[in-house]
Each structure stands twice: as structure tokens, then as C-alpha cells.
């Protein structure tokens, strides 16, 4: 398996324009950009339609799901490209959310506050990534775990900025271009989906262009313990910063949707969910991130009407284990592989009849 993956990667690195085989495209998440963009758009429209058709409570869960999906999309770059386990996805969301609320509270225009918060998150992510990317494998996981673990108490310590244990409110009447951005409004849903699609398309482009190739080569080379001519550290810092930026964007949107942020919302479990959502859905698929978001944001709410709430952890753990036992490449890749076979089957049957 690994052997074959290496071969694919090296070949695609050498000849990025080469058309990938169906199997390679599914397992690397590269190539066939128009088809992938279309899939992304279709899935996004489906999520939108679902959100519009649902009761506001479900719509709120869908909105949160898409927000998680944005964070997952960023985290997937670290997981899928570099093969590193990042548990600090919740940290960047906290930075974005707290930054946004604080800048707004200082009298900054909310739009400007949002942009500033995202930029700040990107900057902090880069600074944290500089030491963190010197680590490898399990050490990355441990360092990010320790950071994620520290966030709730750190937020209490910085109570002048964060509002401490009681938390702080997001700006309420933020309505850029007349869009009502809060809670379960249709505007909020449309906005988060559009932002996700834009970021997803950008990810897809970057993933297939030189930056993605470079990052992939660095990730695989790390895995194989070999060296390439590329500055690994720089590439890794860039990928981590990208993940942090998306986390920051997700954080700002989270603050808008929830309307309130407090330290208990940013426990280390949030980082675990963001990672797990990516793994379940497939870390190398863009539309898979959306699927992962729905797993994390929607499933626990909907599950409550089927199983006792206390048992939702069991279901989640089981889904994660099944996803891992199935190869750890996630549901999205599985569907991408199954789809051609299924259409082939349908075509044959049609031809036979």
C-alpha cells in the first residue's frame, strides 16, 4: 500500500500535468479538478437545500457543521498533505472567535474586526508553527494536544480580553450587505456555505498546483524518512498557517452563529472532533470536509432522538473505528472509488436490458 502510494506521489510530483488513474485520483485527492469542483458545488447545494428545508434548530446545526467543515478543511491540509496529527484545530477557532469579539468590543467595525481576527490567527498560527513543525509524528500530536488542553484555562487567565469563565458576546447586529449573520438565519447558512465553497475551491486549486504538490512531496518524504531538495520547514509552516487561517475564519463564523463564546466551548475535545471529522470523511477530499463537518455538527444532535445522549460517544467512537478499519482514507474516498464502479454497473445493466 505504502509502496504504491509513494510511486504514485513521486510520479505525480515529476509530472504534475499527467492525468491520474481513477484509483490514484481517489487516493490522493488530486487531479480531475472540474469534476471535483462540480461535486463540491453539488454537495454544497444539497447542504443548502437541506438547511433551507429544515427546522431552524436543524439549520443551526447545519450552520455549525459547515463552520466545523471549514476548520476541518484547514486541518485536513496538515493531516492529508503532511501526514501530521494536529489536535489544535480548536485553538485557532478560539483565537479567531475571541479576536473577533474583542476587536469588535474595542469599537472596531465588525467586518474589519473579522478580517483582523483572521489575520491575527494566521500570524499566531505561523509563530506557533515555527517551533511545532520541528517536531514529527506523535510529538506533533502531543504538543498540539498540550496546547489545546491549555486553552480553556488560558482564556480564564486572560479574562480582561476573553471575559473569563462567563464568556463574552459576539457583536449582535452585524449585517454586512444587509445579510443578517447570526444564529440560524438563512443568510448565515448561505454565507457559511459560500465561504466554504470558495475556500474549498481555493484548496482544490492549491492542492493541484505547485504548492500542493510540494507539500505532498514533503509529507510523503517525511513519511518515508527520505529527503528532497525542498525546505521542509518552510513548506510545513505554510501549510500549518493555512490551516490556522481557516481555523480563524471558522472561529469568526462560530462566534457569529453562536452569538456567545466561553472557555468551555474550546475544550481540547473540539480539536479532537475536527481531526476525527477529517479522518472519518477523508482527509484528502475537499467535499469530504463538508461531510466531516456534518458528522461533527449535525450527527450528535440528530442522534439524540435515536439513542440516549450519554451513548453518543459510543456511536462516534464506533464510526471512527470503522472508518479507520476501512483503511483510514475516509468515506469520501470510498465513495469516489465506488462511484465509477456503480455507474459502470448501471451502464452494463442498461446495455444488457
Amino acid at each position: 500500500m505504502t509502496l504504491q502510494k509513494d510511486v504514485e506521489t513521486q510520479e505525480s510530483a515529476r509530472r504534475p500535468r499527467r492525468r491520474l488513474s481513477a484509483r490514484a485520483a481517489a487516493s490522493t485527492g488530486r487531479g480531475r479538478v472540474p469534476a471535483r469542483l462540480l461535486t463540491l458545488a453539488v454537495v454544497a447545494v444539497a447542504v443548502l437545500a437541506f438547511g433551507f428545508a429544515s427546522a431552524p434548530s436543524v439549520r443551526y446545526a447545519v450552520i455549525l457543521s459547515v463552520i466545523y467543515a471549514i476548520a476541518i478543511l484547514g486541518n485536513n491540509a496538515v493531516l492529508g498533505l503532511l501526514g501530521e496529527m494536529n489536535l489544535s484545530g480548536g485553538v485557532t477557532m478560539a483565537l479567531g472567535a475571541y479576536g473577533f469579539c474583542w476587536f469588535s468590543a474595542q469599537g472596531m467595525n465588525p467586518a474589519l474586526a473579522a478580517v483582523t481576527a483572521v489575520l491575527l490567527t494566521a500570524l499566531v498560527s505561523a509563530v506557533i508553527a515555527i517551533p511545532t513543525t520541528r517536531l514529527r509524528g506523535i510529538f506533533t500530536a502531543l504538543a498540539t494536544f498540550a496546547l489545546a488542553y491549555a486553552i480553556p484555562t488560558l482564556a480564564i487567565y486572560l479574562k480582561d480580553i476573553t471575559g473569563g469563565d462567563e464568556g463574552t458576546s459576539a457583536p449582535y447586529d452585524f449585517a454586512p450587505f444587509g445579510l443578517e449573520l447570526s444564529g440560524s438565519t438563512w443568510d448565515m447558512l448561505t454565507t457559511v456555505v459560500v465561504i466554504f465553497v470558495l475556500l474549498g475551491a481555493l484548496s482544490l486549486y492549491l492542492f493541484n498546483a505547485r504548492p500542493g504538490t510540494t507539500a505532498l512531496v514533503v509529507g510523503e518524504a517525511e513519511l518515508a524518512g527520505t529527503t528532497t531538495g525542498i525546505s521542509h520547514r518552510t513548506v510545513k509552516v505554510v501549510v500549518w498557517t493555512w490551516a490556522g487561517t481557516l481555523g480563524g475564519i471558522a472561529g469568526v463564523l462560530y462566534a457569529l452563529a453562536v452569538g456567545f463564546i466561553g472557555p468551555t466551548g474550546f475544550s481540547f475535545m473540539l480539536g479532537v472532533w475536527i481531526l476525527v471529522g477529517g479522518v472519518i470523511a477523508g482527509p484528502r477530499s475537499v467535499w469530504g470536509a463538508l461531510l466531516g463537518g456534518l458528522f461533527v455538527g449535525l450527527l450528535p444532535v440528530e442522534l439524540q432522538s435515536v439513542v440516549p445522549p450519554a451513548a453518543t460517544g459510543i456511536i462516534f467512537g464506533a464510526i471512527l473505528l470503522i472508518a479507520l478499519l476501512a483503511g483510514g482514507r475516509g468515506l469520501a474516498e470510498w465513495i469516489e472509488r465506488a462511484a465509477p464502479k456503480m455507474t459502470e454497473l448501471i451502464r452494463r445493466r442498461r446495455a444488457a436490458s
Partner: protein
Amino acid sequence: MSTRSLRITLCAALVATTLAACGGGTADGGGDQGSGGGTIKLGAFSPLSGPAVSSSSGVKATEAAIRKLNDAGGINGHKLEFIVKDDQYDPAKTPGVTRELVESDNVAMMCGPQGSVPFGAVKDYLAARKVPSIVNAGAPTLAGEYSYLVSSPFDGLGGLLADYAMDELGTKNIAIAYSEDILGTSALEGAKKALSEVGAQPAGEVKFDVSATDFSAQAIQLKGTNADFVIMPGAQANVAGQLINAAEKIGYQPKWGLSYASQNQTLLDLTGGALDGRAFFATPYISPESAVGQDYVATLNKYFPEVETSSGATIAGYTIGEVCLTVLQAAVDEAGGDVPSSEDIQKVMNNMSIDNDYIKGINWTTDGHEGARSAQILALVDGKFETDQDYSPLPE
């Protein structure tokens, strides 16, 4: 479009259709109206799973109170339906489950939703939806146009403990231990104010972190103050127990001023009998050893035999259930015997004083929705929480 793209599109379309189908189903399912058929719908959220799951016993006690009334025939023949959703004490999940309660389940009021931080996340939403809430949380900041508190403010409990130490135990050598949250800091303020009114100063103010695994630094600092009495009402039982044990370990044995938040068997088990006669609990709620307490114990044992009856959090949940029922009885009367609407409920709550067996000193008006301004002190005697100082008004 190539055939491959077509295949992927087909597949995505399949997913989309499935999702949309699910969506349609959910929307249809959430349609029935609550205020019909003689059922009054009440909602609450509580951490039924996740790391804070231990605090969910309160909502069970609330449910016990409601079920008891249902089994006795309901209110004027109207049955009560109590719907509890899990928010894992995560303020990001609370708005989702609350929206479900309000918009899908159409609850008329929130009866005992748990937790200061989660409620803070939905306070404005509930107000916008005009759904009144009787909150099971101690933070005075949660009181608002549509939210009503039952629990005493912790500054009052802190002050009560300080007064008790000075008047009954005869010491002014008092230290305060607190965590950096609304309960801890308001208890600190209340105790300091009570001390300053008699011209005294706290012997020390020591801060702790509720998620810490080691409290020895705080124990050493407290011992350094040499105080006879330590006020710590904001702490939960496991936190209080750890800090008290850490103090015992270094040979520091003051009397402890706690609250209903840590009044339970866990504290006694953790401290292994060391606290007998040295722990005092400020609480607006009843003692499980009192006459009315026996009634409560019997009810809880009937519906939730696994829930611990001596716990302050359980008694609080039960009391909140009783308060809700008092409110609803008045609201049904207000509605002329019909199922009351949210407006009816809020209307009666805005002009309500409660002074019964379960709780004393609640005076809700249009402008004031804070909790009970009367509390008692329970002392730990032979492993039982017995009334040591009867209900008295909290210091302002």
C-alpha cells in the same frame, strides 16, 4: 464533461438527493403544536454526556418533581411533558438543542436548564423568542427579562458565611478561596464586603483552578494565612474535596464555609470523615434531614432511585421543579383553567413571591428576577447535613 466527471456528478447528486430527502423528513416531523390536548410542554438542557455529565442529577430531580405532580393528576387535569436535551455543557451545542426545544418541541417555558455558561449562550435567544426560563444556575448576571433565578446570589452566600463565622463561631480570622468564575468571584466580593462592614480584612485570598489535578500550592497558601475559617462556596464537591485533602496533608485543619454546590456524598467520601463538625454549607434549599426533606427524599427515591438525595445540586433541581409547578399552577389559573401560553407564564412570574416549604425569599417583579434572598446554614454532623442556622435574609 468527461465520463468520469459525469460519474462523480451522478454520485454527488445521489448524496444530495438523499440529504434533501432527510431534510424534508425532519421538517415535516417537527410540525405539531404544543399548546393543545391539555399538555404543558416544559424544556431543559443539561450535560447528559461528556465531561460534565455528573452535574445532570439536578435535571433528574426536576423531572421527579414534575412526574410526581403528573401522577397526582397534573395541573387542573393538564399533564406536563418535560423534554430534556443534552448540550454536554458546551455553549456551542446549547443554542442548537434550545432551538430544537423552542421551535420543534414548542415548549412553553424552560424549567431548570443547567449551567451558567450554557445558559449565557441562549439567554438572548430565549428572550427574543419570548420563552421564559427558570434557570438552574447561580450566576446573578443570568437574570434578565425572560430569565428568572431561584438560587441565591453567591455574593449573598459568601457574606452569610462570613457573618456566620464571625457571629456564631466567633472568629474574624477568615480566609477566602475562590476560582476565577462568576460564582467564585462574587462569593469573594460578598465575603469581603461582610468583613469590611465590621472593619475586618480577609486573612488571605487564594485563587485556584477548578480543572487542576493538584491543589497543594493553594493549601500551602491557605495554611500561611493561619485562618480559622475558609470561605469557599463556589467550589464543586470534587474540587473542594481535593483542596481540603491537600490542606489536611500539610496539617492545616480550619473550618470550611461551603455551599450547596459541594454538599454531597462525594465530598464526604473524598474527605473520609475528616470534615465532621468542620464544614458548613450555605444554601437557600432545604436540608434532606428536615421534615419536608423526607417528603422530597421519598419522591426522588420513587422516580430516580439511583440519584443521591443528600446532594445540594439534586435538592436544587427538585426545588426548581417545585417552583416551576407553583408558577404553572398560577399560570393555569391566570389562563382560566386552560393550558397557559408563554405570555401567561411570564405574566404571573413578573408578580410572584415564593415563600413555601421548599424555598424562601423569592420576590420576582417586572424588573427584578433574582433568586432567593434567604438562606440557611447546614452543618455536617455525623455524615448528615443538618440545619445549624435557620433561614435568614442574606446580607445586602
